[in-house]
């Protein structure tokens, strides 16, 4: 049988199954193959907060979405072209996201009476008309896998476990993915259990062959490699990029990295990643709680390390008091907040942008600090280096606001050459700095940056004491003098505000230069906004786009940019937090678009919103 091959520009597939079905691994492997093939891509894992919710239930569904294309893309995609549903729960949980006409590959073996009941299907949807709008491929994935592995000395249960590899094989066939890397991967992963390795490889190949032979699939698809900028690429998730950025910052600042952290979803993987790289002189300290984590990081900073703490929303709340101490003692510190849905425990595995105002104001007293927000998974690398640059140069804690979407999402990353990374090293104080030539003044400032000297223990002659009580300008001695306090409050603010002159201007993307509507964003909404803007332009609309990475202080030209447009639309996954800051500062009537669903925006949704704003002009 010769099969038809169809060319596509882009495809969105979603693997969905039970938490125990290995969907994340399947997605990761498909991603790796796709990356190797040279498509541009973007991924969106989505999994429950429970380790393993009861099998077959809706809360137990875990999914992985991948968008790949022959051109550069910006998001993991709104609506899947293909859903792989490993059981009825996976079908039910994901169906509403599927556009009509999409393909559904359903593992019929799991559509048992019991499993159907678990999710409230009276009749199997594969057997009534309810799925008529979609193209159903009923595949008995489990039994095909078991059959394919008959020759292996495996229990049935063990054999069944490989069904995700069968599915991967089938999808790899369907989209012409290279297979060698996956085979190699399985060999390495199960190096100690060669039987398991072989079984998984066999399942994978069986899946491929099934596609090749079955009539259920008459067409396969090709998506040409994308024309990306030349260079060496790898696929990278936000958490990994962020961890690498921190390591790079340590190398480029020549400061030993000290991480004080307490595990919390979705930030834990940064701790995990950093703890692997002790060869870089990196110390990772799993503290007893978030307070101890940031405390230890600050203590290490006092000792001359690049002190870092990583956490998520509730953890940031706990660190507030110590971050305030860092503000007033003016020591470098990086506080990474991988935002997740709140308030309180909220929805730990879901994404959100709701911590911005906490990052700005969540401390007693006037305690300003810089805030930096990466815009894509790979941008987490650069944002981390930039956070370190500012922390070290200005002797200040810096908040790095990632989120659950960036953390777990991935995309191809053009790997930079270490030689091209900025030198962000600093000098420790080494001698007296007072006019008298003998005294050391720990709070005498650099006239340009307003940064104070960083004198670390072990430096003879610079012994000094710092603390959380208000300090006299210069000497740093305890001071309750009212005017000194007013001055210090203003100097601390001025130091942070001054960073505006040390960061790039806000760039506007407005190809024809005649748009009247500006869409502004910050952080992880970059992809969906940019994709929406593309759609508008493709349809002939005019819209300008700008994206803030430095959220505090804002680039010096921000006001100018905002005022240059009739309307400014600001989509945020919160109730309007950046909008509040911009409105207050520039008195510009920003139009907010807010949806707080624990999920990234969809490009289509935003395109609609943008169009509405344009139309209302």
């Amino acid at each position, binding site marked *: 049988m010769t099969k038809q091959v169809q060319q596509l520009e882009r495809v969105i597939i979603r693997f969905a199954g039970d938490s125990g079905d290995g969907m994340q691994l399947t997605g990761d492997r498909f991603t790796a193959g796709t990356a190797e093939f040279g498509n541009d891509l973007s991924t969106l894992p989505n999994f429950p907060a429970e380790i393993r919710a009861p099998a077959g239930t809706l809360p137990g569904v875990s999914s992985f979405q991948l968008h790949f294309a022959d051109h550069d893309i910006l998001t993991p995609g709104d609506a899947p072209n293909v859903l792989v549903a490993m059981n009825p729960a996976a079908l039910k949980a994901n169906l509403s996201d599927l556009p009509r006409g999409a393909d559904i590959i359903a593992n019929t073996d799991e559509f048992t009476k019991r499993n159907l009941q678990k999710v409230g299907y009276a009749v199997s949807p594969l057997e009534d008309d309810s799925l008529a709008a979609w193209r159903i491929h009923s595949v008995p994935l489990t039994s095909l896998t078991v059959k394919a592995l008959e020759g292996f000395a495996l229990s049935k249960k063990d054999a069944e476990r490989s069904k995700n590899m069968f599915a991967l094989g089938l999808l790899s066939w369907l989209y012409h993915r290279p297979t060698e890397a996956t085979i190699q991967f399985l060999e390495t992963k199960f190096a100690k259990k060669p039987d398991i390795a072989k079984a998984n490889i066999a399942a994978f190949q069986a899946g491929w062959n099934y596609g090749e032979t079955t009539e259920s699939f008459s067409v396969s698809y090709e998506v040409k490699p994308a024309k990306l900028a030349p260079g060496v690429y790898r696929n990278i998730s936000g958490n990994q990029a962020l961890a690498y950025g921190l390591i790079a910052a340590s190398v480029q600042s020549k400061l030993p990295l000290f991480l004080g952290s307490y595990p919390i979803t979705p930030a834990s993987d940064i701790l995990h990643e950093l703890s692997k790289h002790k060869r870089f002189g990196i110390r990772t300290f799993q503290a007893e709680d978030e307070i101890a984590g940031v405390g230890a990081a600050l203590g290490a900073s006092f000792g001359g390390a690049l002190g870092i703490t990583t956490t998520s929303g509730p953890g940031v709340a706990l660190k507030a008091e110590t971050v305030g101490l860092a503000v007033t003692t003016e020591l470098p510190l990086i506080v990474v907040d991988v935002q997740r849905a709140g308030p309180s425990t909220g929805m730990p595995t879901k994404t959100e942008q709701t911590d911005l105002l906490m990052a700005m104001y969540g401390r007693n007293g006037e305690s300003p600090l810089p805030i930096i927000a990466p815009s894509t998974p790979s941008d987490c690398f650069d944002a981390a280096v930039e956070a370190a640059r500012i922390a070290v140069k200005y002797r200040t804690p810096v908040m790095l606001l990632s989120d659950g979407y960036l953390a777990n999402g991935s995309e191809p990353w053009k790997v930079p050459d270490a030689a091209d990374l900025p030198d962000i090293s600093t000098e420790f104080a080494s001698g007296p700095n007072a006019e008298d030539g003998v005294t050391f003044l720990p709070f005498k400032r650099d006239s340009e940056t307003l940064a104070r000297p960083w004198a670390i*223990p072990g430096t003879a002659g610079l012994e000094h004491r710092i603390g959380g009580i208000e300090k006299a300008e210069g000497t740093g001695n305890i001071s309750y003098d009212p005017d000194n306090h007013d001055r210090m409050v203003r100097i601390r603010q001025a130091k942070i505000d001054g960073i505006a002159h040390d960061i790039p201007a806000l760039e506007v993307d407005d190809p024809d230069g005649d748009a009247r509507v500006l869409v502004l964003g910050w952080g992880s909404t970059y992809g969906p906004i940019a994709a929406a803007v593309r759609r508008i332009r493709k349809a002939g609309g005019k819209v300008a786009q700008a994206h803030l990475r430095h959220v505090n202080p804002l680039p010096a030209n921000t006001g100018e940019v905002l005022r240059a447009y009739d309307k400014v639309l600001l989509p945020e996954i919160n109730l309007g937090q950046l909008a509040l800051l911009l409105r207050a500062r520039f008195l510009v009537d920003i139009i907010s678009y807010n949806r707080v669903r624990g999920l990234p925006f969809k490009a289509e949704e935003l395109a609609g919103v943008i169009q509405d704003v344009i139309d209302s002009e």
Partner: protein
Amino acid sequence: MSSGTELSVPGTGGGLSLVPKSEVKLGMKDFKTDQEVRWCPGCGDYAILAAVQSFVPELGLKRENMVFVSGIGCSSRFPYYMDTYGFHSIHGRAPAIATGLAASRPDLSVWVITGDGDSLSIGGNHLIHALRRNVNLNILLFNNRIYGLTKGQYSPTSEVGKITKSTPMGSLDKPFNPISLAIGAEASFVARTIDSDRKHLQSVLREAAEHRGTSLVEIYQNCNIFNDNAFEQLKDPERRDDITLRLEHGRPIASASKAVRRAADGGIEVVPRSSVSEDEILVHDAHRVDPSLAFALSRLDEPAFEHVPIGVFRSVERPSYDELMAEQLQEAVDERGPGDLNDLLLGGDTWRIG
């Protein structure tokens, strides 16, 4: 100091073995700052400050390699008066901050100064975790059994029924015994001393400094404003020698009139010294790995102040956290060489375009 790995001095040995020695002989005045000391006249903190300032030169360390970290409280003002590096941090968090400092800088002698409220109330968790980790810290817990700085509320070491501003009808909660708590938290070094006995205080500090790992030293300290005479019994020349049981490794545990011995039921008990022969008296073994006997000794001061053990309850060797951490870093380098940034970034599956 210029790069990451240079800070990672691995090593083992005594508490000070990794701290550089001063080339010149320092004296007490070298450790005094120009800051006016701001405690109430008569406060026990003065005596402790003087004792520490006159003791530290003896360690022979470089002044710049000593750091005093404190929390908040009257006692936590201490670092301002020591001409070393100092960090007056926030309430209860000194052990955490000092942990980061000590873990990343094995070349420093790090001292934590804390009060009973600072360390046992808000900071209790950091304290017990520092103890189990055995970070190389010397923690001096100034126990005045009251909140001084906030003007006299009861603390976690105040006796039951304490009448204070926040407990006008008397406090309800049983106090911690800091020694018992520390031993329960796997402490490797635990001692108790008193502000008024400089010689004893300094002898305990000496042992604490030499111990590598976390040394907890409880110092009974008089707050003459809000809890005056809390330790009067131990200061009263008429009684103190009777009720003080000095713990000295290898020596029988006894006061002028009392002695500790094994009870018939296997526990330990205090009996009139005259009722036992010298060789029946329990001989102190601070180095015993099993902490049970040290724990039993910590319970001897109940009922309060009938007989109070002071000295080093427990001092056992265990690798310190910073050493272990440094060793892992070294091991990682030994096994696979120092980290290379390009290798790291390129690690995993890559592909080339163009």
